[in-house]
Structures are given as C-alpha cells and as structure tokens.
C-alpha cells in the first residue's frame, strides 16, 4: 500500500473539476454531519471546518452532542451532530437548516432528517442500515428503500464497506477499520466542496504519530473517500464556494472556550501578575481547565479543586495574595460559588468568574445551550451584592471580553462575572488573530507605602480600595466577610456605617460604566423596533435584522456586552424606538431588568429548547412587532 500516501499528497493539488464532473458554484452551504456518538462526528466536523477555513470561507459551527459519553450504540439518544455553515460572504450563524445531511446510521437519519431542507442532499451510509440498527431507530422499513426520502437528493453509499475494502490488508482489525469510516465520509465531503485534505492529513500525523498502522489506515480512508467522489459515477457535481471577502490578515479557527483560555493567558501576561485558575470539572466549561493546565510556562497555575466552592475560594485566596484569580464553571457550579463570590464583593478582591451557561435548572441539559443564568449573575447572592457582569457574543469575542473582565476586576477591585454559553463555547469561527504586541496592558498598582494606610480608603476616580500584597512590610491588615468600617476596614456593626458601605459598594460598581464606549446601534437611531440582545444570540439577531432592513423595515439592533452596570446611555437609546424586542434563550431575564430599570414595555422572544435561535424564527417573530 505504498501508493496511498503518494496519492494523498497529490490529490489535493489536483483539486478542480475532473472533466466528467459538473462544476457548480454556490455562495453558501450548511452541512450537518451526524452519526452515533462513537462515530467520530465531532472530529469529522472539526476537520471539515479547518479545511473550509483554509479554503478562505467565512464560517460558523455548531456541535451538538448528547450528555452521555456513549449512549447505547445505534440508539436515538446516542446521536451526535456537527453543523457548519460556510460561505463566500460573512456568516453570523451555523445555519438554520442543513442543505446537506451526512447520516452515518438510521438513528442519525431519524433525528436529523426533519431539519434538512426540501431538495437537500442526503448522504447515507447504507452499511449501517441493517435490521438491528433500523429497529433501534424505530424504523419499520428501510427508509432508503421505501421511497420516503423522495423529496431529497439521496446518495446511498456503503461507507462501512468501502472503508473495509480500502483498508484490506492494512493490518487493522475490524474495530479499527470501523473507526476509520468517518475519514472516508470526510474525504468524500472534502472532494464534494473542493476542500484540501492536507490540514486533516497533518492532524492525523500528529495524533497517530506513535501508531503508524492506524495513521496509515486513516490516511487511506480519507484519501479513498476523496477519490471515491472523484471517480464514482454517483456524484455528478462538485461544488465550489469561493473565498469570502473578509478583512485581511492572519486567521485561525477558534471556539469560545479556546478563546476564553487564550484571553485568560493574555490577561495574565498583560497584567504582569501570576495567574491562577481554580476549577472543578463541569460541562461545558471543563475544556478551559484542560487547555490552561498546559501553560505552566506562562506563570500560570491551575488547580483542580475538590469542589466548586473550593475552586472559587482558592481563586479568592490567590487574589488576596496579589495574583490574578480566575474560576471557571457552568450554572450549577456558579450557584455553589455564590457565597464565596459574595466574600470577594465584601473584601473587594479582583477575581474573574467564568460561567459557560447550559440548560437548567439543576443538572438540566448539560450539553445544551441556554442564557438563563443572567439573573443568577446579576442578583444571585445574599444581601446587596453588586458586581459587574459582562457577556461575550461570539466564539472569538470571548478573547477580548475575558481580557476586559480581568482589567475591570483589577481596576475596580471587584469580582467580575463573565458569561458565555454552550453554543459559543463549542462553536467555532475564523478569528483574525490579534497582534500580541498591540494588546493593552492591564495596569496593576499594589500599595507599598505604609504612611496613613487605611484598608478601605478609596481611589477617587474608581472608588477601588488599594490592593496590598501580603509580604509588604508595615501594611499588615485584616479583611473579612463581616461588614467593615468604611475607612479602616475593621469589623463594624454600626448601622449607618453599614448603610454607607452598601451604597458605596453599589456606587463603585455603577461607576464602571464610565469606562464603556457609547452604545453602538446597528441601523438607525430611531425606528419601529429595536432588537436588544446579549450574549450568543448575536449572530442570529444580526442576520435577522440585516434581512429585515434589506426589506426596508425600520429595525435596528443593539447588542449588550455589559449587563451590569448597564450602559448609561442605554435609556436614551431605547427611547428612539416604538418597540423594544428582546430575544433571549430564557424566559425574559434581560427583559425583566430592562423593564425594571427603564420602565420600557419591552417584549420578549424567548426560546428554551437547548438550541440557539434560527434566523427565520427571529425574522418572523420580530415581524410580529412591525405591524
């Protein structure tokens, strides 16, 4: 099988329509790969994404997988999917409905077919459509044979068998061969859309460097899949999605969680401090801990604590020691951390709390997305316990937003809650890599002068108290969770002092809004409807508003990054519109805050299905407010 690697190297270079195939240019495609959770669909999707990014398309992805690591093979709950939209123009979402569905088994077909557009391309692995699998998926008859798929362009390919044949004599056993079939499917899709195979071949080389047989098997499967598309008469078309016109520069793909991890390291570096992450494993936040644990050479310490409380508490301990403290979690973990966060509010220590939201309440939907922790973040502690809350809107936006959170924490001596969610945490998009040399420094001032030191004396501009590193002579002091004297920081039960401190803590957090840029309105400053959003709904809202404006509708958009304190000019912005409409993946939490603060009769568009908004959904729901 010496020829295989040779072919592998030459194949991508000869990409281009073979003479017998039709070559069709399309502007925008949404593909969904789906199969059993053991079929490697996430990897297939990720690799297709890399190839598409390198081909110069703009794109967004949406991995959707079950909470169980391996639900029983072939069953409906075990189906894992990965959707990507790629385009020759800017894209804001992973696509409402796939144009192409790759289904590796009957269960995947059953759960995903309803989403496929009418007339869409359906590629099914017939090899998995045996009686047993059909029964597990609840099919009485084989849908490939009974005519029920007639409204789609069906390509029935026995991917299992073709992979087996390709790997005959490779020395791999049946199980290993079975595992390579996703590479065959990937190869086929790479061919169909004229994407390069090199990035995947590079990835395989690094992943299986110590397992040459498996490496060769996967390379062969990928290449054979590619060649199958080229040569099989089944496929009459090869499609081309041209490069997107996007700002020039160097790009990479990034998921929200990767961007959070890099943002944390960048903030650490730019602050000149030692960084510390206290964390406890939880879906969908664990990847941040995994990633950061690799970077001990960045003056960064990670600590997998015994529980969520210890994770937050250890970060507070690190902050007390003059380090940049972070803790990462998801909703249930944040609930456990809240008392400790209150301590950081009371003792005015800079800590960044990262909440990768998931469906709740309780354990809820661990692998699905939701935005229902906004109120938990803003008001979810005992007592009057204000802190800034900041939310990222896209995977790449997580980088800058985390850096801003860290800067805010240090500048105002306060814990900051950063909100992301399962959708942008796992979803990927191309990212214009920022210039490391141009990142803004995070200014840190430690007090070292013992003269007239008062623990709770405040900076006149920021109202922050001084940060003192233990180890500084002459500044020995005690802080704690009991109410403190407004100047000395000593324990104080004085009623008027308490009231003054409650007001002071609130005033300090309110003051953070002085650093915000003016609220950006996408569209006109006045109109019929303002669509007000926050967090991961950005993409779908942007696309929906763009479409409505293209139809001449008087719709504008504001997307909030700062949720507490709200921007000082927001009230004025809202007044420019007849109606304020707030789409959220919850029952109306931002809406509650907006109504309470501005007495505006805001309307909600609310979805809590563990899935992001579709553009079409938003367009039609926003339109209801335009009549």
């Amino acid at each position: 099988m010496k020829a295989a690697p040779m072919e592998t190297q030459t194949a991508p270079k000869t990409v281009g329509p073979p003479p017998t195939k039709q070559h069709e240019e399309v502007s925008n495609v949404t593909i969904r790969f789906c199969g059993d959770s053991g079929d490697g669909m996430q990897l297939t999707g990720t690799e297709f994404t890399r190839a598409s990014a390198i081909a110069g398309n703009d794109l967004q992805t949406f991995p959707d997988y079950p909470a169980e690591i391996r639900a029983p093979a072939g069953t409906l709950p075990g189906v894992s999917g990965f959707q990507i939209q790629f385009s020759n123009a800017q894209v804001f979402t992973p696509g409402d409905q796939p144009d192409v569905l790759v289904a590796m088994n009957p269960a995947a077909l059953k759960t995903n077919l309803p989403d496929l557009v009418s007339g869409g391309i359906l590629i099914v692995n017939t090899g998995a459509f045996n009686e047993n699998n059909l029964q597990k998926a609840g099919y009485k008859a084989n849908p490939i044979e009974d005519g029920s798929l007639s409204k789609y362009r069906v390509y029935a390919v026995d991917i299992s068998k073709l992979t087996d044949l390709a790997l005959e004599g490779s020395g791999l056993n049946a199980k290993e061969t079975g595992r390579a079939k996703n590479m065959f499917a990937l190869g086929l899709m790479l061919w169909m859309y004229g994407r390069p195979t090199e990035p995947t071949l590079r990835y395989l080389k690094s992943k299986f460097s110590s397992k040459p047989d498996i490496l060769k098997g996967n390379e062969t499967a990928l290449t054979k899949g590619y060649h199958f598309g080229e040569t099989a008469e089944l496929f009459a078309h090869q499609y081309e999605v041209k490069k997107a016109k996007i700002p020039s520069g160097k790009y990479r793909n990034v998921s929200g969680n990767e961007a959070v991890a890099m943002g944390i390291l960048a903030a650490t570096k730019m602050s000149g401090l030692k960084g510390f992450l206290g964390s406890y494993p939880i879906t969908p936040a664990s990847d941040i801990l995994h990633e950061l644990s690799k970077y001990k050479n960045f003056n960064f310490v990670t600590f997998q604590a015994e529980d969520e409380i210890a994770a937050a508490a250890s970060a507070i301990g690190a902050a007390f020691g003059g380090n940049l403290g972070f803790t990462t979690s998801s909703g249930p973990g944040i609930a456990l951390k809240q008392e400790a966060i209150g301590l950081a509010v009371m003792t005015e220590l800079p800590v960044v709390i990262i909440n990768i939201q998931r469906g709740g309440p309780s354990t809820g939907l661990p692998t699905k997305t939701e935005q229902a922790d906004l109120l938990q973040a803003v008001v979810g502690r005992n007592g009057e316990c204000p802190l800034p809350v900041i939310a990222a809107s896209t995977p790449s936006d997580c980088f800058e937003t985390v850096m801003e959170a860290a800067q805010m924490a240090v500048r105002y001596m306060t814990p900051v809650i950063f909100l992301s969610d399962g959708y942008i945490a796992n979803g990927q998009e191309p990212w214009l890599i920022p210039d490391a040399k141009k990142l803004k420094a995070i200014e840190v001032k430690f007090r070292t002068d013992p003269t007239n030191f008062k623990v709770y004396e405040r900076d006149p501009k920021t109202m922050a108290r001084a940060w003192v590193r233990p180890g500084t002579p002459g500044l020995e002091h005690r802080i704690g969770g009991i109410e403190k004297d407004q100047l000395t920081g000593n324990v104080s039960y004085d009623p008027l002092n308490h009231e003054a401190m409650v007001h002071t803590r609130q005033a300090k957090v309110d003051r953070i809004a002085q650093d915000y840029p003016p609220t950006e309105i996408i569209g006109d400053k006045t109109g019929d409807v303002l669509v007000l959003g926050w967090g991961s709904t950005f993409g779908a809202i942007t696309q929906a508003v763009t479409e409505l404006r293209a139809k001449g509708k008087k719709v504008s958009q504001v997307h909030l990054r700062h949720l507490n304190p709200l921007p000082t000019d927001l009230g004025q912005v809202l007044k420019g519109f007849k109606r304020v409409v707030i789409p959220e993946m919850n029952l109306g939490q931002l809406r509650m805050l907006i109504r309470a603060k501005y007495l505006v009769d805001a309307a909600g568009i609310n979805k809590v299905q563990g899935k992001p908004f579709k553009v079409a959904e938003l367009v039609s729901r926003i339109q209801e407010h335009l009549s």
Partner: protein
Amino acid sequence: MSTAFKTDGTGSPPPALTRKDFQSDQEVRWCPGCGDYSILAQVQKVMPELGIPRENIVFISGIGCSSRFPYYMNTYGFHTIHGRAAAIATGLKMTRPDLQVWVATGDGDSLSIGGNHFIHMLRRNVDLKILLFNNRIYGLTKGQYSPTSEMGKKAKSTPYGSIDAPFNPIHLALGAGATFVARSIDVEPVHLQQVISRAAKHKGSALVEIFQNCNVFNDGAFSHITEKPVKDDMELKLEHGKPLIFAKGKKGIRLNQFQAEVVTLGENGITEKDLLVWDEKAAPELPFILGSLDKPTPIGVFRAVERPVHHELEVAQSQQVLAQKGEGSLEKLLNAGDTWSVN
C-alpha cells in the same frame, strides 16, 4: 526595602520580634473565661521564636468563635466564610509559597461545613498550619451540638440527646493522609506552645487539634481530663522515642493486639520495657490506635512524617515545563495551529 528573609530560614535575619509585635490593635471579644484567650496568647508567644517577619505571615479563618482569631494577630489576615478557610489558604499558598499560612478554625467550621476542604487539604499536603479549636459545640450560633459532640449530647438542637456519632479529628486527619497530626489543650500553655512550634516548623500540612473549653455553651467539656485531681491519670503525653508513661510514672501503655492497653508498672511483672515506645514516624495505624484511647487521653504529636509538599510539587512541575518549553509567548500561543492569510 523588603526583607530578604524567607520562611525557609534563608536570607538575612529579621529584627527580633516580641509577643507584643503580634498583638493587633483590635479589642479581643471572646467571652470572658473562653479558652481561646489562652490559644491566642500561646500563638503570640511562639511567633517571635519562628524568626519570620510579620508581613510574611498570614492567618486565614472560616466562621465561628475561633475564626475571629486573625483580627487579633498583627499579621496579614483573612476572615473568610464558613468552612472555606482551607480552600482559600490553598489558593494563597499555591501562588505565594513565600508566605507562612495559618488556618484558624473550629470543629463546626472544619469538620462539618468545611469537612471536604479539610480532608483534601491534608491529602494534598498543602503547607498550611491548622489550629483546630475543638470545643465540641457550636458557640457562635449559641449552643447546637457539633460534629465532635459526644452521642447523647443535649444541646439546643438536640433536646433529647444527639444521635450522631462524633468525628475523631485525629482519626480523620490520619485517614486523609496528614503528615503532621497533634493535639494539645488550652489549659496546658507550655505544652500548647511546644506543639504549635512543632507545627510551624513542619513541612506540609500540620494539624493541631486543641481541646478548648467553651465556658458558656459547653463548660467543662474537657474537665474530666484537665481538672487537677484527675489530670495525672487522664493526660498521656506522647513524646517521640520515649515509653508511654503517665500517672506520675505509675502507669503506662502497652500494645496488645490492636489496642492500646493501660497497664500498671510493677503489677504482674510489668516493667518499662513492656511499654510502647512512642514513634512519630510510625505507620498511621499506630497513631490511629492511640487516637482511639480516651482514658487516658493522649496529647502531643501523634504523627510527623515527610512527604512531598503540594506547592513544591507545583513549583517543580512549572520549572520543568518552563525548562522544556521556554517562557510562554503570547505571539506563539495566538498563532498556534492551522492559520491562513487573507489579503
């Protein structure tokens, strides 16, 4: 100029400090007659002899009467939330190995609400000095039974007597893999100072259980050990390398199967040679057996062994990664993986 002196004893020696240097300006507000006063006094007496500058010492506490401790020490201090002192101290020690970090806590704080952090701190061998004030009652909340209250204890929340078996802090610590486990008593100032001093010098987690009398809600909890008429028969001092003798030399302890047996010297031909010679470095099973003994009640160092210290492992690992990979570059980090250029 900050002092070059370090907690490991290297660097130029600091100016000699006195007990007074460790007293803060805050009025001590425990109930009159509380055992905490003695513990505070003994700690303040031991501090100067450690030779560590005040600014390099941090006291961290949770919630409870004992947790007010940091306010009274003129060092850095952090009075945190219920049960979490160990976790907060762990984060501090991991990032600031140069500081000597103490934890002041109680039986409710550490063994009930903070039980999880307590055992994990010990298993990790985090270099913290833990003063566990055990008064077998909840004092600050005014008299509920605690996780060390004896069965049958009648308290505010157990008018008919507690039905919960108590924790034995010595057993718990040994089970969690603690490298230093000791016990002393508030009314034994000299002994308490010795034990605190030993704990301060131990490398790794050092747990000191201190029997402490709450004269308001659980008065006399330890008087069956500490009262003059019974004290000699009830206190057994553990001293490394010495046979276990008490009652003014009349009685001793010998190992009988898996039990510590009280024997009388001279009776049935028993001599000092039959007695158990105390060994702090023995396998944890031995101190566990002694920990089960209540008549007499052992005080002193149950166990003092060495095992890799948490922050040292962390530092070594970081240095190793640094040596392998060089100092992390943001430029490289951001540009890692597949990249492509758009013109």
